[in-house]
């Protein structure tokens, strides 16, 4: 009973308490130091909150009130209709906000799936099997990561045009299906640390190598995969420069809102409606972060580099 009280979700509460006691022991001078830091951090937080406060207020004003009224003043009338207008009015090359959301969803899903799975496959194969060229592949992959080739976008556009996938969803698969990205090294290290006995036991049970990978080894990598899935999906959701360059006909939320913002700035248009669109676009990544923040914080911290 006492033991079950001590461990909550696998965390040793006694150890955590001891850790907290040691780390939060302060001399009077240190207390002043940490108080100053607290004030600085609070001011930084306040600066973020001020921006949020302003943009939310601005999104609820009329264009006249936004341009000619006091910027931090509360709107005379809360224009919640700006949010519904954002769905119908924010259009870029015939794609409205719904279209952008749809493009963002498939772009994020495809890019995330391939970006996390391909390095996982290569990491597993190279860490768990001995074969000719294994060391060569590993060395070339590491050198490739250490020395990034700059300025490849034009050659990439030409190549994509030649094979006919420029400005098509296939580009997303092709460009995110590299098996030798930075996460390859993480998966390599992860699978190297997983005992071979799992593979051997499955082999004795008659499983072939595909079954071993998909049914035995891959489930063990789920925490790593999940962490990458969360962080990658947030970054693909927010990606706009690649979308602008390689799939301009499928504006995602980030790319579409950038293009729309450029138009609005030129014609001094309906900024409150634009801000409403911006706010709507950040809801999904914020919700995902809120649901998984503890997972992200602990997984990346624990899985980080030693020393």
């Amino acid at each position: 009973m006492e033991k079950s009280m001590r461990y909550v979700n696998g965390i040793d509460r006694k150890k955590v308490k001891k850790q907290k006691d040691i780390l939060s022991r302060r001399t009077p001078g240190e207390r002043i130091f940490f108080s100053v830091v607290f004030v600085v951090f609070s001011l930084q937080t306040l600066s973020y909150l001020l921006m949020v406060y302003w943009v939310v207020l601005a999104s609820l004003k009329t264009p006249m009130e936004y341009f000619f009224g006091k910027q931090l003043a509360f709107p005379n009338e809360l224009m919640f209709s700006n949010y519904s207008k954002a769905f119908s009015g924010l259009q870029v090359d015939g794609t409205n906000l719904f279209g952008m959301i749809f493009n963002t969803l498939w772009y994020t899903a495809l890019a995330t799936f391939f970006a996390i799975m391909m390095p996982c496959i290569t990491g597993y194969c190279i860490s768990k099997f001995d074969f000719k060229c294994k060391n060569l592949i590993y060395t070339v992959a590491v050198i490739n990561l250490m020395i990034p080739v700059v300025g490849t976008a034009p050659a990439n556009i030409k190549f994509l045009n030649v094979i006919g996938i420029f400005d098509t969803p296939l580009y997303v698969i092709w460009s995110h299906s590299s098996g030798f990205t930075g996460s390859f090294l993480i998966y390599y290290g992860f699978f190297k640390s997983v005992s071979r006995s799992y593979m051997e036991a499955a082999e004795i049970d008659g499983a072939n190598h595909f079954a071993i990978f998909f049914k035995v080894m891959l489930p063990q990598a789920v925490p790593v995969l999940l962490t990458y899935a969360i962080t990658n999906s947030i970054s693909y959701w927010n990606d706009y420069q690649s979308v602008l360059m390689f799939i301009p006909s499928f504006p995602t939320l980030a790319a579409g809102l950038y293009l729309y913002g450029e138009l609005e700035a030129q014609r001094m248009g309906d900024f409150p409606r634009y801000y409403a669109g911006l706010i709507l676009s950040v809801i999904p990544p914020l919700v995902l972060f809120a649901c998984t923040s503890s997972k992200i914080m602990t997984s990346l911290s624990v899985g980080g580099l030693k020393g």
Partner: protein
Amino acid sequence: MENEILSEVDEVKAKKKKKKAQRGVTIFLCVMLAYPILEFLVSWIFVKFNTILMAFQLPTGEWSLLTFKAVFTDMFNTQATFSLAVALRNTFLWLLVSIGSLFFHYFIAYVFYKKMLGTKFFRIVFYIPAILSEVVVATVFKNFILTNGPLADIVRIFGIEQLPQLLADPDYANKMVFFYNFWTSWGGHMLLLGGALVRVPLEVIESARIDGVGVWRELVQILFPMTWGSFSTILILSFTGIFGVSNSVLMLTHGYNGTVTAGYWIFHKTYFEGASAYNQVAATGLIFTVAGAIIALGVRWLVERIPAVEY
């Protein structure tokens, strides 16, 4: 005799089994690695190698070194506000700032490690700019500091009647871009550095505290050497990616008013100028790649001179 035959049969069976298992491994590896290796080769041959070839060509396809000549001329063009000279200056300035910021991020990670009041809250708040789209954060920031924006209303309270055009005036634009990047980066590297700090054995800290070690010595003389591995890795990565840095310049200034960086210069030429600038981008990219490789390997060599503490 019979036993010999049986053992031979067993041997043959075992060999067959081994061969079958080996074949299974070969099929598995071929199926799983065929696409990644093909993708790697194709992207090297048709994209990266082609980038090298394009650097030695004119837009018409003729072989020439004129593209390099134009690039080098632009690298020394200090008169224009949008040139490779300005881009390189800003890129190296940003490198210095990001190294300084890295120490600051380490300090933030340390403060969180020490369980300062409000750690959980600040950790989430500082991380939020990293999960929001640059389009959103930069747009809000850009409009906040406009001459008719909320910042102008705030400074008026303090007697400043006219706020300068912070992103349109070359005297301020670059400083504002740097400020914006610093302001949004407080959560940078927090997770990796925080993870490294957590892994330092608590007994080390406990005994140091008993010996009367204060915050400064604890941070500089104990924790920093013990987490040098993580810190140096991030440091090397900062140098490795130096020519890819774009610093939200597209969102804030489009690179004008002296704010262009190397990474943005490449994006701008490719996206806004199109095919006519492709060869120039390739030549510049090639120079940056060679310079980047020398810098990255040099920094790596230097960093490895400092031994990491084993524990």
